[in-house]
């Protein structure tokens, strides 16, 4: 064995992966503080500040655009979507894994089928439905439709999770005086918290990332999310406000990455319960 060579390969691998992940973001952060004259001079070294860095564009982002509103909307929508998703997906997953009999355990596939219908196909009729419900052009439109993306995903994830919990625990609870519902709430639910934590992160991330619904269902600036609002406000036809665009992306990304990164091992655990989404655990 060649431990030294192996170690070198290991470090090199880590370095390459980190560079790939971080390079576009470093470039983003560098750009955010550049002066126009520096940015648009093709002869400049793009990685350094040829003119002193400026906070102008970051300040513009917060004072001259509705970015703070977008941030708030994204957060608001994200949190509500997470709540709705959990309210729908947790009982559904439990029901499929424990109560719906044999076909329920195999319904992982069926849940996947819901995914096969991409938003690009649905957004026109969905908009008619959203309007029928008088939610168009408000944040509620997005709160209403984002669970279409998050519920199947989280149900699938939790389905695996519940299946991996020993049945006896809930049966013990039944015998110890719980009804089935209480056994779910008092025993199964606390034990599935790692899975639920994963769901929270994924539901939030998916709702934050959506572009097409956010673009089409909401045109009022006051209701835009970061995802749709930033391109709308900072690409003004003839001009890309590159520095502000980059700042906007960095400001939303970096804190989330820290949060997700700290939860990294948790997220991995969230997927560990199950693999193909349908096989019953013995």
């Amino acid at each position, binding site marked *: 064995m060649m431990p030294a060579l192996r170690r070198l390969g290991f470090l090199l691998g880590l370095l390459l992966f980190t560079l790939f*992940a971080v390079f576009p973001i470093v470039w983003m952060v560098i750009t955010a503080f550049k002066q126009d004259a520096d940015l648009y001079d093709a002869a400049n070294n793009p990685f350094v500040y040829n003119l002193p860095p400026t906070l102008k564009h970051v300040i513009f982002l917060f004072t001259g655009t509705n970015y703070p509103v977008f941030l708030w909307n994204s957060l608001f929508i994200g949190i509500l979507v997470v709540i709705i998703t959990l309210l729908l997906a947790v009982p559904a997953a439990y029901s499929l894994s424990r109560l719906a009999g044999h076909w329920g355990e195999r319904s992982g596939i069926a849940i996947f089928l819901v995914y096969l219908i991409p938003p690009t196909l649905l957004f*026109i009729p969905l908009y008619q439905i959203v309007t029928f419900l008088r939610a168009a052009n408000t944040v509620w439109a997005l709160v209403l439709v984002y669970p279409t993306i998050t519920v199947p995903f989280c149900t699938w994830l939790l389905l695996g999770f519940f299946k991996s919990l020993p049945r006896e625990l809930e049966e013990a609870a039944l015998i110890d005086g719980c009804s089935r519902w209480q056994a779910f709430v008092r025993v199964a639910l606390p034990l599935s918290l790692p899975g639920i934590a994963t769901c929270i992160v994924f539901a939030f991330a998916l709702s934050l990332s959506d572009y097409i619904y956010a673009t089409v269902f909401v045109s009022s600036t006051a209701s835009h999310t970061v995802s749709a609002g930033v391109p709308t406000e900072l690409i003004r036809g003839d001009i890309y406000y590159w520095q502000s665009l980059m700042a906007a992306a960095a400001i939303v990304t970096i804190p989330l990455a820290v949060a997700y990164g700290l939860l990294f091992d948790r997220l991995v655990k969230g997927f*560990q319960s199950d693999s193909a989404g349908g096989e019953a655990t013995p």
Partner: protein
Amino acid sequence: MNGAETTARVGLGDRDRLLGWLMLAPSLLYIAALVGLPFFLAIALSMTSATVGDPSIHGFVGLGNFVQVLHESAFPLALRNSVIVTLGTLILTLVLATAESELLVRDFRGKRLLQILLILPWAMPVSLAAIDWLWLLDSEFSPVDWLLRHIHLLGPGSPLGPANHLYYYGKEWLGLGAIVAINVWRLLPFATIIVLAGRTSIARDIFEQAQVDGAGFFRTLFSITLPALLPILMVASMFTALLVFGDMAVTALTTRGGPGYATQVLPYWAYLKGIDGGALSEGAAVALFMFPVLLAGAILALRMAYRAESQGDRP
């Protein structure tokens, strides 16, 4: 003593079947109303002559829109590119995710920090990621071009020259490559998490056995790790494929389908035709072409996953 206990009220919470349906019902109703119904509306729409100006479902034209769409020169390209982008992203993502999970399965100092750095792309909304890459691969100001020029790979008299720029989004294969790169970039953390989940749940003694048997790193990887990972790799591919195949933000914000239709993909073309162009029904028809492709892909992947898993179960 017993008598008092048995009078405990028997309620809804005790009837498994009924409770099961009640717990499932909200999700089912929600999905039926907001996925099922619009899906059938979309199908209905695709068989009419509806336009954005008059989107009501009337004026039945049968499969006319599908025939019309099939005849356009953009269709084969959009289908081809959708498949290329999806498969390209899929293969690269899986290979890289497997490699990355091999690294991250170990413990080392600074792992926390590295996890934060590696998950960065996934924390960025896809539209902002696309804009980031639009700027990163800008035709004039790309720092990648600048680096390439500085190591004399680009520019007059160099291997990639003579131009001073590569014009990523202005070329067919570089454009598709860039779209693949963006998708790989943003989905790699997600795929790595899934693969890592599978990787860490492989029993340790298998690896120890392999070590005892004298298998090297690559031997172990190909004979032990990968076969054991197969089911979870299928799951990762499903998610990756579905996220990429249905996405239009990356294309819409970078190449816009150009040059010509060289990098056009089905979802953006559907959007362009249906919304920008106003031909709602034709847009719906294009979008519906995605469905059978996705369905076939999903069934294939799931079958493979089940087969791999049931084989793995056997002692």
